[in-house]
């Protein structure tokens, strides 16, 4: 991903919108008793599009904003979400993504891991209580919901970041580069004639 000031602004706007949507909309929804983790989906998709470093930085920023907005312990969400962004980015750097199924599956798996990570960190930090077994099933449902949410979110965020994507931008640059070259070849050929 080629980062310009304009793309950084877009990334910032996407993260801010994702956090606001999470705390004011998605956290209110109960689907099979569980709220979808929208921020995890957005961070994962950005990691899948931008690579490990961009994914990790976006995850850190989104986590920090989430903890500030909810007045929760700073660093918990950052740690989990930067891992999500990094792992999604590593997947993109290691494998070719040729359909929307792969990003959705990766996002679903990462949401499951993120839910387990959040739960473990929160229980380790300041909750001295017994844990219900439904935490496991709830984490699986969160993973499934993230899988479904990734289907519309991946093309949507890819569209928003299209000018910065190396693979998406390559054909356009190639055509601008080849056009003068082909014209030159034609003119050279004409001169010989």
């Amino acid at each position: 991903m080629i980062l310009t000031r304009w793309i950084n602004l877009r990334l910032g706007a996407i993260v801010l919108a994702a956090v606001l949507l999470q705390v004011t909309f998605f956290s209110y929804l109960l689907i099979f008793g569980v709220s979808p983790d929208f921020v995890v989906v957005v961070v994962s998709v950005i990691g899948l599009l931008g690579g490990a470093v961009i994914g990790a930085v976006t995850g850190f920023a989104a986590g920090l904003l989430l903890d500030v907005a909810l007045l929760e312990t700073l660093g918990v969400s950052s740690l989990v979400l930067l891992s999500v962004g990094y792992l999604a980015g590593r997947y993109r750097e290691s494998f070719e993504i040729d359909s929307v199924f792969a990003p959705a599956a990766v996002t679903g798996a990462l949401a499951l891991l993120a839910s387990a990570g959040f739960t473990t960190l929160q229980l380790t930090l300041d909750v001295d209580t017994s844990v219900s077994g439904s935490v496991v099933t709830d984490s699986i449902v969160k993973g499934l919901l993230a899988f479904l949410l990734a289907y519309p979110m991946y093309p949507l965020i890819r569209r928003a970041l299209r000018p910065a994507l190396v693979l998406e931008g390559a054909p356009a640059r190639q055509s601008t580069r080849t056009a003068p070259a082909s014209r030159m070849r034609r003119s050279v050929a004409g001169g010989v004639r």
Partner: protein
Amino acid sequence: MLVGLIVGSLILLSAHFSEAESGPLHVIQRATATVLSPLETVANAALKPVRDLIDWFDETWEARGENEDLKEELAEVRTRLAEAETANAENEDLRGLLDLDKDELAPYGFEPVTARVITRTPSLVNATVGVNAGSADGVEVDDAVVAADGLVGRVTQVTSTSAQVQLITDPRNGVSVAVAVPDGPQGIVSATAGDPEELTLEIFSNDDEVSDDQYVVTAGWADPATELSSAYPPNIAVGAITESSSSEFDFQQVTVDPFVNFQELTHVQILTGGPERPGIDE
């Protein structure tokens, strides 16, 4: 870069967790949350119609099976209403004798501040909501929060324009309660991580019998000798006992179904001020 971010997160986490409420990280967090609060209020209001539409579908689906249950519940509530009206008449007479304000809905001496729920955490463990009232409205940490149906929780963080409310379904929150019968047994009600639907009440004694459908209210105790007191005023409805069982130990564990539907919480009242409580108003 990655190592730097991980180390940064861990430093933030340990520093924020160990520092006092007045520490620099908390101050910066509250200042930033104050800036975000108007955005959250606008986003919350803008998305409310969509949430309502989804809720409508959800409730219509659920209502099909609830009709019979509600008829049985209505019959039971009528019986309870008759009992409550008798008690209310007696209460009004006593209040008249003591010259108290009859129109005050909040517990005596408390100033209720009405606030809208604007944010909610997506966590499976922690159960907190954000409300659009803060220190500028007189809200302070440890103020009790109620809704029309009963106890919601208590204030745990305050900015000038917003506050964080820890719900009673948050496992970090333990509430001193009493079973609502004369000289009812007292105990602590708390939630299990990952199961916000039910609360567990641990009663300190195994001698007092409790039964299903008995109500549980806040105990609101205060002990000037130890300078300790409950954060909650007395006699706020918490829930109804749904499963009681005797135990071979010195305490009983019973299940309590909270009265408040936390998923549909849109407005709350924060009980500010109130009489001095040892260990709280300092």
